[in-house]
């Protein structure tokens, strides 16, 4: 409790179980999410239209032919979004040409991109449920990928064992990195946001350093890139090559089942949620809050480490370690967790959705020249809007627009 009596132990994403729903009629969360998407897509479309060269050329003659501006803008926007859809879901251009498996190429890419996003989303979400904001998924992922990669390209082990060992090492590395932040929080109250941000950069520097050492540097290369992970340590593909969806997806689903079970069915999960709801109450009830923070961060770090494994062992950077192994997943995963409201299965759907955006963005860029950064814009806007349901309701004049969204009460550095 803070000095002025406000409860500040509320987590960022309030659990919205049936017990919590207010009796008065409230806009359904899915409606808010849908409207957030629409708004974000519209904003993205406006950006495409405004920056589109033919549209800008047409705008110079706006007074003589105003219709041309709009048709040109509409053409640019629709072409970009259609390509985005075709790259992520279904592509009529390649459908039915040759190999049947190629018809699934967009879906495979979506699932492939969703795999690490789901894992990072689970990582961030689990920490959220314990009242911790883990911004350090990036660092934990990097450590996991580095450790798993090292095992993958240095050791020689029999096929299945090699993969399992690499996965375990990656998970442990991520868990240790996450656990440090949890330990610091438990021991000294150091705010996890600060420590995890800093540890992201420490991890990145460690990786950069490692890539200069003989242990990690690819022989004969003067670039910061490691050798290639041996075939025995790679995550097996689920569909015939070149489709990239791999065992990592099954691991992500298994992790979701595990986290869902942990949170709702296990004693530990109850403790995690109790600490997340109110550390003070949990402490009064005899729970060891500090140890719970460490446990939560260890598990979260392990999940991020697993995401790192899926990057390096699943071919994210062509099975070689570079300093781009994170690929922005650490922060995209935060948006996945926020969209999934820190719950395991919604996180999977959020991961699939953003995975589809990631998959489609490559097609969109190659076919229409629209920058892949559009996806980052859409993604961040969606999360920005759903974080403030009151804003969306106010924009669309929905009921309860006066509700200030106090449920999403923030907590400060000293919290």
């Amino acid at each position: 409790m803070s000095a002025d009596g406000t409860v500040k132990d509320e987590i960022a994403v309030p659990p919205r179980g049936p017990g919590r729903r207010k009796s008065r009629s409230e806009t359904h969360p899915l409606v808010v999410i849908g409207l957030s998407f629409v708004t974000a897509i519209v904003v993205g479309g406006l950006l495409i239209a405004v920056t589109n060269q033919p549209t800008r050329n047409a705008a110079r003659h706006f007074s003589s032919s105003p219709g041309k501006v709009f048709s040109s803008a509409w053409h640019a926007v629709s072409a970009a979004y259609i390509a985005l859809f075709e790259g992520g879901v279904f592509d009529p251009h390649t459908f039915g040409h040759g190999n049947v498996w190629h018809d699934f190429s967009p879906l495979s890419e979506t699932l492939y991109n969703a795999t690490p996003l789901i894992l990072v989303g689970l990582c961030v979400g689990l920490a959220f449920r314990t009242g911790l904001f883990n911004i350090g998924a990036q660092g934990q992922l990097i450590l996991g990928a580095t450790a798993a990669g090292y095992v993958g390209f240095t050791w020689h082990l029999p096929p299945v064992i090699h993969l399992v060992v690499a996965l375990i090492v990656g998970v442990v590395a991520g868990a240790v990195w996450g656990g440090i932040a949890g330990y610091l929080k438990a021991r000294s109250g150091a705010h996890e946001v600060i420590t995890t941000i800093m540890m992201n950069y420490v991890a990145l520097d460690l990786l950069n350093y490692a890539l200069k050492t003989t242990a990690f540097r690819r022989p004969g290369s003067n670039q910061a890139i490691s050798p290639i992970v041996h075939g025995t340590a790679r995550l097996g593909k689920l569909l015939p090559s070149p489709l990239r969806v791999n065992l990592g997806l099954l691991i992500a689903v298994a992790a979701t089942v595990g986290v869902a079970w942990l949170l709702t069915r296990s004693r530990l999960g109850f403790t995690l949620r109790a600490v997340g709801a109110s550390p003070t109450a949990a402490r009064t009830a005899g729970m060891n809050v500090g140890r719970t923070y460490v446990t939560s961060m260890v598990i979260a770090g392990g999940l991020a480490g697993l995401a790192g494994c899926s990057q390096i062992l699943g071919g994210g950077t062509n099975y070689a370690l570079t300093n781009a192994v994170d690929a922005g997943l650490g922060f995209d995963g935060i948006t996945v967790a926020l969209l999934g409201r820190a719950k395991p299965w919604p996180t999977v759907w959020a991961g699939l959705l953003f995975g589809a955006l990631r998959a489609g963005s490559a097609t969109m860029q190659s076919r229409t020249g629209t920058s892949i950064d559009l996806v980052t814009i859409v993604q961040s806007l969606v999360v920005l809007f759903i974080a403030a349901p009151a804003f969306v309701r106010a924009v669309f004049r929905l009921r309860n627009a006066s509700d200030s969204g106090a449920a999403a009460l923030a907590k400060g550095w000293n919290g």
Partner: protein
Amino acid sequence: MSVDTTGSLEIATPEIVEVPASRRARIVSGSVLIVVGVLCAVAFGLGSKAGHDARFRLSPPGAKYTMPNLVVPARIFALVVGIAIAAAGFWRIKKDFSNRAMKWVIALTILFVVSSFLCWSLTGKSATPLDLFGSGGLLGQTIFLAVPLILGALAGVMCERSGVINVAIEGQMLVGAFAGAMFGTISKNAAVGTIAGMLAGAVIAAVLAVFAIKYVVNQVVLGVVLNLLALGLTGFLYDAVMAPNSNSYNNVGTLSVLKIPLLGNIPIIGPLLFDQTIIVYLTYVLIFAVDILLFRTRWGLRTRAVGEHPKAADTVGINVRRTRYINVLIGGMLAGLAGATLTVGDSSGFVKNMTGGRGFIALAAVIFGRWSPRGAVGAALLFGFATSLQTVLSFIGTPVQIPSDLLGMLPYLATIFAVAGLVGRVRAPAADGEPYEGR
């Protein structure tokens, strides 16, 4: 500046009451000093070649009054420094220093350990003296690298003192850098670019303010999301507008160096401090302005009251939300300016994600500097020095190869140690990050 007429209402800044360090703390900190001293003496003293001198150039070429090079016998220097530090450690355990004296001991320890490290590193092979104060020298580069960090940190201090967490410094800097490059090129005027950068930073800050203050969104979540938004926006606009036409949109002119008459001729500090671009001078002014604003004006008193105890501030008639809005906007402008220094101030074009984590180092400087402008500036200078040292070490051949990436971790590790209470506890403004539900 107006004399504080509300003196009777002065809310004291959280001053820690002098408590003698506990026995355990004394033994721990004393032992750390002894270990540091011994390590310094052994590694930099015995580790450097006997008879080798470290040479430092004190006057950059073209200085009006030249000074002879400074020559330091590296081994003797490091040995003396190491023994002195170890002695201070013993003193700490046996007799203890006052808290004030201990701060000096720590500061001098860091200063001398770094100096002996530098002397040691110069005994490797380089015969050319190390330039210290020139614009490309170790300390000159420190100032250059620290300017965006200082401005970003001041932005953080402004926001967080009023109770709004600003994790979006990085994003504000990024849009500032983008807008600076874009409008600086279009207008062919550095000043226009700088102002555009400040306004762009303020736009992101406005979103931060509205969502944090009006819609009560978790401010850390908000900051993270806004960083992503800024990254996406600048990346998208770069691809769509800038990259195809970089000559007409991403080609800022060079910002000329202005030497201040008289001051610029002072030996040593003249070329270091007063032979810089206008952005650096602007930074000097802003450092003093923010410090005075926060601690010597009515507005600052109100800001700090709002950041510490909004309800109390509201009770005496301060408009909490308005105060926060304005502070966040000022912060956004400072962060945007910090970004503009990277393009306009450096006479270089925009590239995607060009801030590269500087906003987070600035945030670290805010925290490391204990949310005070002076502390934040000091921390930013320290972090700038670490970066400058990184580049300098990479081209002087040190006796033993120093991995520059490990050196790059120092700011982050220092901040972790600071928040974990290993070098004295840091404490945020009491209401930092807590939305005010009142009016």
